């Protein structure tokens, strides 16, 4: 199993769009930064045919240190969830995506 990194995505932009490698990398970074900033503001990010990133609020609960058994409060926090769209689900199984994409 291979792992793609920023460099691979920047290379794909370079190959597809024909911008310089430097600018391709900078634009990828801008895209990730804009998505992060929207999520930081608590705003969901919907990418059609890919999926939705959304911030969920979790309440406080009592946790336990599994090693020592000491009870520790787990503070209220926000977690990031990703809901893949039906199109993405179909594509990664190499299937034809459904006509209507309702999860994106």
């Amino acid at each position: 199993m291979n792992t793609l990194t920023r460099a691979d995505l920047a290379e794909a932009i370079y190959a597809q769009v024909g911008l310089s490698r430097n600018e391709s990398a900078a634009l990828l970074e801008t895209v990730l930064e804009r998505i992060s900033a929207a999520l930081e503001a608590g705003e969901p990010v919907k990418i059609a045919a890919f999926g939705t990133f959304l911030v969920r609020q979790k309440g406080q609960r009592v946790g336990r240190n599994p090693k020592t058994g000491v009870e520790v409060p787990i503070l209220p926090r926000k977690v990031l969830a990703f809901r893949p769209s039906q199109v993405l689900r179909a594509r990664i199984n190499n299937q034809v995506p459904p006509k209507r994409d309702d999860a994106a």
Partner: protein
Amino acid sequence: MTKSELIAQLAAANPHLRQPDVELIVATIFDEITAALARGDRVELRGFGAFSAKRREPRTGRNPRTGAAVAVAGKAVPYFKPGKELRERINGGPPQKATSPAQGAASARVA
């Protein structure tokens, strides 16, 4: 924020780029991630998160209405694990722990 809003933001920040190029840039990013997952590869974007495809084994499911057994084929399910930096940003900076790990361990030994 939607994909079209993301494209609009990117276009506004880069007035030297043509609109179709901006659309192609955004499409390329998500298409590349999708293609990687379809190949069974993972995509790791440090500070942002990692995309991977989790394998689900074939199983016997049931039609909830009739109770009839139906074979459910194995499949891959997309998964996203947010990166540490992004998790912390969403929570407004690095976490403030109630007790530091050192204190927790010390009180455990006393108890």
